């Protein structure tokens, strides 16, 4: 994958994202993938004058992931989408659609995580 890749952890992700913002980087988006049983990878893609930097976080899906929406408001939408697709929670999400950004409340199957069923939202 082209661009600089840096690994971050639960403890450092918000600080690293703040550092990127202070450096004048634009948050392009977040990408996710399955990183083993019960784990997901999150890539935070940044752009500055067409140069790309990626932060990679491998997260346990059963723990709330630190939200970066307090640093970049634009992360709010994509974090809500990830919440829909993986049924994970974000800690500090500035506007939480509670897993109904794209999905209907009665949906019980997590779209991107195999064999995981969830309770309908009321």
């Amino acid at each position, binding site marked *: *994958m*082209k*661009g600089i890749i840096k690994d971050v952890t639960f403890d450092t992700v918000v600080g690293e994202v703040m550092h990127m*913002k202070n450096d*004048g980087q*634009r*948050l*392009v*988006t977040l*990408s*996710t*993938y*399955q990183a083993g049983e019960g784990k997901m990878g999150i*890539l935070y*893609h940044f752009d500055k*004058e*067409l140069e*790309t930097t*990626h932060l990679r976080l491998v997260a346990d899906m059963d723990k709330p992931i630190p939200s970066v929406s307090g640093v*970049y*408001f*634009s992360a*709010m*939408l*994509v974090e809500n989408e990830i919440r829909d*697709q993986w049924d994970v929670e974000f800690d500090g999400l500035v*506007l939480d659609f509670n897993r*109904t*950004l*794209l*999905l*209907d409340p009665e949906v019980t199957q997590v*779209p*991107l995580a195999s064999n995981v069923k969830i309770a309908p939202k009321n």
Partner: protein
Amino acid sequence: MATTVIPFGPQHPVLPEPIHLTLKVEDEIVKEAVPALGYVHRGLEKLADIRDYHQMITVCERVCGICSMIHGTVYSQCVEELMGIEVTDRAKMLRVIWSELHRMHSHLLWLGLFADAFGFEALFMQFWKVRERIMDINEATAGSRVIVSVNIIGGVRADLSPEQIRWILSELDTAEQEIKALQDTIMNDYSVKSRTKGIGVMTYDQALELGAAGPTLRGSGVAQDMRMLGYGGYESLDFEPVTEPDGDCWSRSTVRFREVLQSIDLVRQAASKLPEGELAVKVKGNPPEGEVYQRVEQPRGECVYYVRGNGTKHLDRLRIRTPTFANIPPLLHMVPGCELADVPVIVLSIDPCISCTER
């Protein structure tokens, strides 16, 4: 002052596709806008689990009809990079030609809809009349007006003969004259300016911080266009991004208008530099383990694809971030402070494509 909550959408005369905004209004001034999505979510990314990597081109082209060509191109580029496939220069340049035709017809469609949003029906019809020429080119060269489906992994499936290229250039000469005849109206007409100048302002710094993309970003003076990366055949074309400094609806409209003329120029350049060569290279095997991140410029802005291969014919992950998805946070910033009557114009000024956004 009492607050009134007004639902905007999901069905509204200016919205070709459904999106809902909850507007909190005080005395005709919007104080807050909260979006609601999900009306046309199809879960297309998940289809990568059951469709092989060749079939996924067909799926990607249907993420959005209006920019289907460019979705097919970026997906193909991702798989080609993953598999180490070098596409021929002719195929790259043919992709540029169809991509720019798509940009033209998308912008002309939007310019018509924008005119319609502030009640200028005659201008709406004029832009759509010109657009028909581009649709006719698509139909004559690829067999379909909207979803041209020319991309395959390794190149393209359709070619342009010298006669077709001459005819396309002649049609574009006519279209250019017709478009330039509308320039004074869309840029300088009193009623157009009164509905667009100083409305929905987003500054340079705000556009970057909110992650805006495409004409919404460039309308705030940021000279960034993914075609500057030189992907596909763009590396051999002369290209400067179109920008306008004011960050209002007029600026975003003017960027798109000027980009239509720029696309005509790019098609001319691509046609003049179209090399001889094969249309596609043969593809064997499956995408190996690995990941690819690609960005291209769609009519609405930067489109991001992230692809992971796992050595099988199915991709491990296909992630698509479309430009309208990036432009919703900027929209939520533009609307507060405006008059209620300006909301449709501001919403349309980001050229929202909701089927793209929700996939």
